[in-house]
């Protein structure tokens, strides 16, 4: 078992391929056919294309903000590919790729960052919770959903995710402690991308790594090379089996690097060096998977063409998002309550009266 063999207490890291895409840990190589591997790369290519476009749309002033996922693609592809339609995704905010694989559309993602709540109304995605901005809180929701599916004896697994910085929040610990008690079928991921905005992970905690935190809650934990698609895939596969077997929750620390800025309003040059960035770029998850495929000679697609195709698709989605009907006053009120209090109705009516007056002044 990966969770046994790579003890975070010894600061071991689970890795299957090296930076050159060579398999260094054959026994753990997940049994994937070429098709699936190619598909994984295509997913990642789509994520990256969409991500880069999102950043540029924001730069053009057509969205308000956006948290780039550049560099996180292997984690997103590996977890997304291990999720079934009935499984639950309880995301933080840097999980665009996973969300896409669960059926969220880029249009919805764009809508959200254009400042429209409709972007959290995932029309075709099953069991995806809106992103949680209040850091740490989503871990508790995942634990609760875990209890729920277990109690209802449903064949459903819950995936949730947090950043390295988020592990300092009290909610993180409370959620994992409950998870240990309740033995819930939840897979908790830490996307350790080395930074919480400007704060490096070494200033976040004195623990030797983040996976060891699992020990305090009596659940298995493992530190994985998050830029190694195969390692991530194998880890999720094992975690899923563990959950299905009724054994409970696991904590996965996925080591990666936030290649982009924190959000589009952040400037990483203030707090990290070019050298560090260069060093990490050598571990880029897409280059590694590509090299693996090259060694094996299985990648035969025209990447440029693919990217063009993806760009068209993303452009279309963006356009749809931009052409959403305008936000209505009703949209402010209608979902505050299932059973709306009269007070709110009155506030709306009063405002409409003001709007009428305003109109009359024109």
């Amino acid at each position, binding site marked *: 078992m990966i969770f046994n063999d790579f003890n975070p207490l010894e600061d071991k890291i689970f890795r299957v391929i090296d930076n050159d895409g060579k398999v260094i840990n054959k026994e753990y190589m997940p049994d994937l056919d070429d098709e699936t591997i190619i598909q994984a790369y295509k997913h990642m290519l789509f994520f990256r294309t969409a991500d880069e476009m999102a950043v540029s749309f924001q730069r053009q002033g057509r969205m308000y903000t956006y948290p780039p996922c550049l560099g996180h693609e292997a984690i997103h592809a590996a977890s997304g590919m291990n999720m079934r339609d009935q499984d*639950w995704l*309880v995301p933080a905010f840097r999980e665009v790729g996973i969300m896409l694989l669960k059926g969220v559309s880029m249009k919805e993602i764009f809508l959200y960052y254009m400042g429209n*709540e*409709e972007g*959290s*109304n*995932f029309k075709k995605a099953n069991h995806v*919770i*809106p992103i*949680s901005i*209040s850091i740490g*809180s989503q*871990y*508790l*929701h*995942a*634990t*609760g*959903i*875990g*209890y*729920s*599916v277990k*109690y*209802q004896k449903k064949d459903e697994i819950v995936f949730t995710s947090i950043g390295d910085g988020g592990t300092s929040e*009290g*909610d993180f610990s*409370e*959620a994992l*402690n*409950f998870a240990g*008690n309740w033995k819930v079928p939840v897979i908790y991921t830490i996307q350790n991308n080395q930074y919480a905005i400007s704060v490096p992970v070494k200033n976040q905690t004195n623990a030797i790594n983040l996976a060891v935190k699992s020990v305090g809650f009596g659940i298995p934990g493992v530190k994985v090379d998050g830029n190694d698609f195969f390692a991530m895939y194998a880890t999720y596969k094992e975690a899923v089996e563990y959950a299905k077997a009724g054994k409970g929750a696991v904590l996965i620390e996925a080591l990666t690097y936030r290649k982009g800025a924190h959000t589009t309003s952040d400037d990483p040059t203030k707090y990290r060096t070019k050298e560090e960035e260069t060093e990490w770029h050598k571990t880029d998850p897409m280059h590694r998977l590509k090299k693996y495929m090259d060694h094996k000679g299985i990648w035969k697609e025209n990447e440029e063409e693919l990217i063009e195709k993806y760009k068209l698709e993303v452009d279309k989605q963006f356009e749809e998002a931009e052409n959403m009907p305008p936000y209505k006053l009703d949209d402010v009120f*209608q*979902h*505050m*309550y*299932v*059973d709306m*209090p*009269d*007070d709110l109705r009155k506030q709306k009516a009063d405002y409409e009266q003001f709007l009428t007056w305003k109109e009359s002044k024109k």
Partner: protein
Amino acid sequence: MEGEQKMSVMTIVQAINNALDIKLAEDKTVVMYGEDAGLEGGVFRVTEGLQKKHGVERVFDAPIAESAIVGTALGMAMSGLRPVVELQFDGFSYPAFNQIISNVSRMNNRSRGMYKAPMVIRFPYGGGINALEHHSESPEALYSHIPGLKVVVPSTPHDAKGLMIAAIESEDPVIFMEPKRIYRAIKQEVSDDKFSIPIGKAKVLTEGTDVTVVAFGAMIRECQKALVMAKEAGISVELIDLRTIYPLDKETIVNSIKKTGKIVIVAEAPTSFSVGGELMAIANEEAFLYLEAPPKRVMGFDTIVPLAKGEPLYMISPDRIFYEIERTVKF
């Protein structure tokens, strides 16, 4: 019909227990947990016997972590359950504050109605039981200010049962504050059947013409004592029990003010930035021309509720209520 109902004499504790029991029995999606709420039935024994009857998967103890209790309940509520969680005391609802304000109250809006939060957060509230710090608080203003929540406070066993059933059946999250001071002090005949009382409706307990007194929870009993004094003094008081703090039943309140022209608000919480202020605002917004005297708040000082020795100085006594009623009427 009424005559055929089986009735039992219940305290508020028993009435809430009975409501939980009924809902647990009829709806398998109802689960209930909290610190000591399982095996022991809670420090006030509100959930006593429920674990034995409905099983440890549905009624259970939680570790000491209020944020987790509420946050996990939200997860359950989003995925098909109707959790009822107990926070041990008013003052221990605060560690859960972020989950309540940032998630519970907003999930329905955030998800555009896709993920509702049908859940009840219940806790005993209020002073007058000679307790330690954090065990005597009345945080209704804090929770009522948060859009997306409903806030309920019963004052009798009958109301406690009916409102609890309504709270569990509510598709919106409900903060259910239980007046611990009168948990066992009032006994009343309550129907054994299932019934519910609509959230958002106040109740006129006594009709009167000189002044409107608005209160809720444990203060109702103190007001009723003050009403005896008022009657002796020849003052006719209309007493309204809010029962729900948000949404406020403005109609009932405003109709009464229109009749009496005067309003006295009684509550235990600190005066400033409180439910009292909101009720005064409503009186102004909806009945300004009817007001014959300044609305009056008879509320706690802007201090912490003192420990037991000092508590009698803080708590609102019937004679103080009467004193302010009289002053308002004489204005």
